[in-house]
């Protein structure tokens, strides 16, 4: 007989092993999936995990793109992970990302065509504030009226999407765009462009901020009393209250931080890689970041690695579609498997398997 037995302490070994095992399992099952679809499984897995980094035809371009794709994921996931640690479930980072992009872009475009060097810093501040303000809605409702932040933040994503549609075809529409929706393109406006800092590296300000966020979150969670309060609130809410932690303050802090970081991610994306506010500007970073946060064990360094891994599966997945003709949905399935297996394997962190009946002493 096989039995699951709760471990007295979560296993340290499995905490680190689980993500690796999940990746291996995803490769195996994904390989089976690809072979059913008629692609060579080894080639498919190699295209996804190896080619973006080392294929001579693509790597020169793909490698820097990893940073471009991972930057916003890491930035958002860091913010989310802090809330998740405290048991505050902000599912609406996508909405905060959109609002950050809109506010940041609007602040910049209001001053078009100025070439002042202050424009980009202003946009950064406005972007962070936009995301922060959007996250304050669930925070205020939760602390005031006890609403559930999961539902409120998630529903606000759809509100933000409609605001995005409205501003792209109204308020922020490019006056020279012949009536078509979409704002001016920041790539054609030096002062508002989040350009690569060093050519051909993919490093733009968003990636820099992502690295700063990783370090900042690490320091806060391990060295600072606020980080301790956050963890305490998540792990033992009652103890936290006895220790004098103000739960409302933690809610505001966690949601506000997550919102501001998501807003920053949106601003850096709209002024850099995306270039403009359009109706379909958001492409799910806010939701994917939830996977990244958990894949990275809610640990800043883990999130950094998980973000890069996720970016790799995106870019590799695109190459696999292009070179091997596998359907787009199979790539999404492949990415979904990664989280599925992680959650599955995670059982072993808290439980161990015991084979055979145990004698009762």
């Amino acid at each position, binding site marked *: 007989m096989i039995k699951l037995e709760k471990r007295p302490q979560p296993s340290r070994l499995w905490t680190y092993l689980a993500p690796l095992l999940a990746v291996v399992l995803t490769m195996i099952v994904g390989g089976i999936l690809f072979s059913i679809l008629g692609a060579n499984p080894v080639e498919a897995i190699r295209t996804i995990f190896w080619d973006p980094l080392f294929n001579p*035809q*693509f790597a*020169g*371009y*793909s490698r820097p*793109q990893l940073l*471009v*794709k991972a930057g916003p994921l890491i930035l958002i996931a860091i913010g989310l992970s802090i809330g998740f640690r405290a048991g505050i479930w902000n599912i609406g980072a996508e909405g905060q990302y959109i609002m950050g992009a809109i506010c940041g872009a609007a602040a910049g475009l209001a001053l078009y065509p100025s070439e002042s060097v202050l424009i980009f810093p202003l946009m950064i501040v406005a972007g962070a504030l936009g995301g922060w303000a959007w996250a304050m809605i669930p925070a205020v409702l939760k602390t005031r009226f006890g609403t559930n932040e999961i539902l409120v933040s998630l529903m606000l994503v759809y509100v933000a*999407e*409609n605001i995005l*549609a*409205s501003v792209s*075809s*109204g308020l922020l529409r490019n006056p020279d765009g*012949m*009536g*078509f*929706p*979409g704002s001016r*393109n920041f*790539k054609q406006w030096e002062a508002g462009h989040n*350009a*690569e800092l*060093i*050519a*051909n590296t993919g490093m733009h300000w968003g990636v820099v901020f992502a690295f700063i966020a990783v370090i900042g979150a690490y320091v806060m969670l391990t060295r600072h009393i606020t980080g301790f309060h956050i963890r305490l609130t998540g792990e033992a809410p009652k103890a936290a209250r006895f220790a004098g932690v103000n739960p409302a303050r933690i809610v505001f802090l966690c949601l506000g931080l997550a919102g501001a970081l998501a807003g920053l991610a949106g601003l850096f*994306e709209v002024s*850099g*890689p*995306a*270039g*403009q506010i*359009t*109706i*379909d*500007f*958001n*492409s*799910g970073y806010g939701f994917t970041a939830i996977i990244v946060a958990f894949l990275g064990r809610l640990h800043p360094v883990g999130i950094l690695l998980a973000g890069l891994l996720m970016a790799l599966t995106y*870019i590799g997945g*695109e*190459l696999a*579609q*292009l*070179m091997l*003709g596998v*359907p*787009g*949905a199979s790539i999404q399935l492949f990415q979904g498997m990664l989280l599925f297996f992680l959650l599955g394997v995670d059982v072993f962190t808290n439980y161990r398997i015991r084979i055979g009946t145990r004698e009762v002493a």
Partner: protein
Amino acid sequence: MKRRTLLASVALAASLGTAAFAQDDPTKACFVYVGPIGDGGWTYQHHQGALAVKEAYGDKVEIAYQESVPEGADAERVLTQMALSGCDIIFTTSFGYMDATNAVAAKFPDIKFEHATGYKREHPNVSTYNARFYEGRAVVGHIAGKMTKTNKIGYIASFPIPEVIMGINSYFHHAKMANPDVELVVTWAYTWFDPAKEADAARAMLDQGVDVITAHTDSTAPLAEIAKENGNAWGFGQASDMAAFTTNDDGTPGPRITSIIDEWSPYYVKRVGALMDGTYEQVDSWAGMPEGEVVIGPMNDAIPEDVKAEAQAMIDAITSGEYHPFTGPINKQDGSAWLAEGETADDGTLLGMDFYIEGITGEIPQ
């Protein structure tokens, strides 16, 4: 300065890449799709066009595509990777790819880029193409005006852009000429492809007594919703024929009475062919029924014979160039004159259309 060196190095890599490929390899035509190829509508039709290219040229061409590519930052990366993978011509099949198409085209001057429904041709290797969908809207508008019993017809609009406004005006104008009592209900879905939202939009209109609905979104969900009315409401296939909705499972006539089909095959075959025989030139193509790019699908028996005949006559007149769907007299919504008796709309006005015609209630959202 920094950016210029980047461009130079990428362009160099690209020209080396294509030079190595160009010798005797087949011509590689690549397609970027905004939805899944199984959407049964917009993307499905573009993919049919891609398959037609393969069909037409066999081993001389190679086809590659990527589905569900988000419009925005991802599009630029996907396009660059396609260019690096040796594509000779790249078709970007959604409006939102416009800036990405032009940006990547700048880095790869030897590769041809074809952008659907856009207007920016910033580089000599970028062409644009579109179809005169309003010609199809005219025909289904006429049928809608004749078929409605409640005198309320509906339009599921995606976004307030000239393309959609043009469709609404053409649909209503011809419905009104067929039936002066007709009223139009427009619902904005703010999406191109979201079956749930599209179904909700259809349901909302049906509940208001609308009994003929056309959609400017890509999925079959509105037809599935209309089917629940058991023959008391009708709809049209959009972008694709959606023939599956012609007959219900129990053999009764289904909700789809005809369809507007986007037929991209002639254009794709022509352009890839031109690239292969060296006659390729930059174009701004806006073709319609005469070129076979806009096709009205088979008409269901639910449409009375005389209405079928009228619709067919309109198709013939548009195809021969005898009739322009926007022929005056037509006034704007506020009552001011737009087209005088016998005057036809010019392409510039149509492509920037931002007003409703007289008789439509409601406002275009801003």
